[in-house]
């Protein structure tokens, strides 16, 4: 699986080389595949209906034999202008709709939105609600990372079994979400100033049991991946990303930390009650696909540690600030940008209020959309088979990319 290194493009931050000029499109020519054929390169349209594209995502790839020479991502198959809909609904009305952004991590989407509105209108959150939010966000991280590893192995050809192992664990966590919020994936659980319902002692005990059993699954799963010869051959030295380019391109989350950049919003911003918790930030060395993959495995261990501390510390009390108006909620004129460390990276909401019940501007900063900026840089010089693995390691969900 070695690739001649001469074919790789050197990653220079902020500059685009001749790859953009390869196909100057004639504006008068009709759009179509034939207009983009060039020289010896063959253009292949990968997706949108492809099991490894994680949804409806298309890449226009120019191939020299089996080597990728150019790659243009094509978006928009799931575009429904989420932001416009957000501007035409009340603040609370957008809350269930944020579940549909990254439908794997509805709890963190809820939190990011609630956090931004709380910033916008200066709402305080009770202590128990903050703990519940951390518990749910870390459970979300566990199930997102576990299923990502399963999907990635699936992309590499290990069909079925590893993914089902991951889904078995994910389903236990989704059962917890269902018993708490009423829905497995579309939780709609957070509210401005707290959470919608309280968790019972029984629920917390069950969650603790599942978290306590999780390391056993991780041990088993890491054995599958860490020293697996095929996996190492497919991922090490594939899709290397330099720290400078990663910072310039706004890459966030595990993908940034795989390049060795120590930047975790849980530590930097210290939102919620994260400063009260002891946890480490795993960092990678090489920035290749293997590091990105291991970053997820290591982060799950840290999430378990956070969860165990949260179960011990969680106090009794109200879960929602009683002063917050539910009906006719109108934040003061102003704007706010709030962000959290979602499992896929920095998820932010930018809101402008003009004093009316609807936001004047409602913007989602989607981590997986921005993480795709450097997909071409990662894939150049690699084979088509590697594109699937690299794309899998970026961790995208099209509901969030296309919005």
């Amino acid at each position, binding site marked *: 699986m070695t690739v001649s290194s001469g074919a790789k493009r050197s990653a220079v*931050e*902020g*500059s*685009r080389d001749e790859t*953009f000029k390869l196909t100057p*499109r004639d*504006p008068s020519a009709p*759009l179509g595949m034939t207009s983009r054929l060039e020289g010896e390169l063959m253009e292949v349209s990968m997706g949108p209906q492809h099991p490894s594209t994680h949804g409806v995502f298309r890449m226009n790839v120019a191939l020299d034999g089996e080597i990728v020479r150019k790659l243009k991502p094509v*978006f*928009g198959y799931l*575009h429904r*202008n989420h*932001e*416009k809909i957000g501007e035409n609904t009340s603040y609370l009305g957008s809350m269930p709709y944020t579940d549909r952004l990254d439908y794997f991590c509805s709890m963190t989407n809820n939190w990011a939105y609630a956090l931004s509105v709380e*910033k*916008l*209108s*200066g709402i305080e959150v009770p202590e128990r609600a903050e703990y519940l939010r951390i518990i749910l966000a870390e459970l979300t991280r566990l199930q997102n990372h576990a299923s990502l590893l399963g999907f990635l192995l699936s992309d590499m050809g290990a069909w079925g079994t590893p993914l089902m192992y991951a889904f078995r664990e994910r389903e236990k966590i989704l059962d917890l979400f269902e018993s708490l919020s009423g829905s497995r994936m579309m939780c709609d659980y957070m509210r401005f100033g707290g959470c919608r319902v309280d968790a019972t002692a029984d629920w917390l005990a069950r969650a603790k049991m599942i978290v306590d059993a999780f390391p056993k699954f991780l041990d088993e799963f890491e054995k599958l991946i860490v020293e697996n010869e095929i996996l190492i051959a497919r991922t090490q030295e594939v899709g290397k990303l330099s720290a400078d*380019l990663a*910072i*310039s*391109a*706004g*890459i*966030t989350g595990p993908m940034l930390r795989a390049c060795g*950049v120590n*930047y975790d919003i849980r530590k*930097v911003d210290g939102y919620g009650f994260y400063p009260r918790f002891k946890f480490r930030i795993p960092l990678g060395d090489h920035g290749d696909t293997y590091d990105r993959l291991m970053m997820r495995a290591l982060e799950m261990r840290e999430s378990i540690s956070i969860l165990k501390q949260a179960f011990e510390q969680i106090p009794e009390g109200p879960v929602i600030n009683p002063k917050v108006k539910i009906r006719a909620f109108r*934040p*003061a*004129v*102003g*704007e*706010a*940008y709030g*962000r959290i460390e979602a499992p896929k990276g*920095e998820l*932010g909401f*930018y809101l*402008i*209020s003009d004093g009316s019940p609807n936001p*004047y*501007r409602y*913007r989602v*900063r989607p981590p997986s*959309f*921005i993480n*795709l*900026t*450097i997909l071409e840089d990662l894939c150049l010089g690699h084979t088509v088979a590697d594109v699937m693995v690299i794309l899998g390691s970026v961790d995208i969900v099209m509901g969030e990319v*296309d*919005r």
Partner: protein
Amino acid sequence: MMESLEQIKARIETNLPGARIDIVPNPGPSQQSSLLVDNEHAVDVARLLRTDPTLQLDFCSNVTGVDWLDRVVTKKVKVKRVVEGEEKEEEETQQEKILGHLEAVYHLYSITQKHGPVIIRMRTADRAAEARLPSLTPIWRSAEFQEREIFDLYGIRFDGHPDMRRILMWDEFKDYPMRKDYREPDDYEYEPTPHDDVLEKAKQHYAPRPQLDGAENITAQK
């Protein structure tokens, strides 16, 4: 601790004489005020913010557009008047008309220094379909897709962007859906059957929009 916006403004003005920087106050509780940068110096200002050793804003997190329609702001201003030989201060309500414009907003953070956000904005002169702003993609690569998205949904063209195409809507699409006066077609799939209320809705849709005169001639490519 990060410098205050006034200090950043002074730093830019000493390093880049001629650059016009205004502070846009944010009256809300979030305390996030922003810097309005003039379009001619925007790229230089951005480069300075990125490379300045005390700021080092190397991470451009969020790039987005805002559409402001024409609006009238009522202000209470204190006016000095001479009434019967005596100088008096009187309150007067003035109405200021602010012309509509499009805005691009950048949220900047520093990964090396772990501070932020510094918010910079650029404004177009009007809401014309050919509104232009300088692209900051050469400074921060993360603006690449996000500026394309602004072009797609708001119709601001970014000069100096390496690949200015639509990104979420299809290439043949006309109009800019995130603009506040956008009116969506009744159905993308077929022509509406021309009778009764459907006809009325269709008529509404075909009404000319003054801001978009000539917009249908613009293709995604230059």
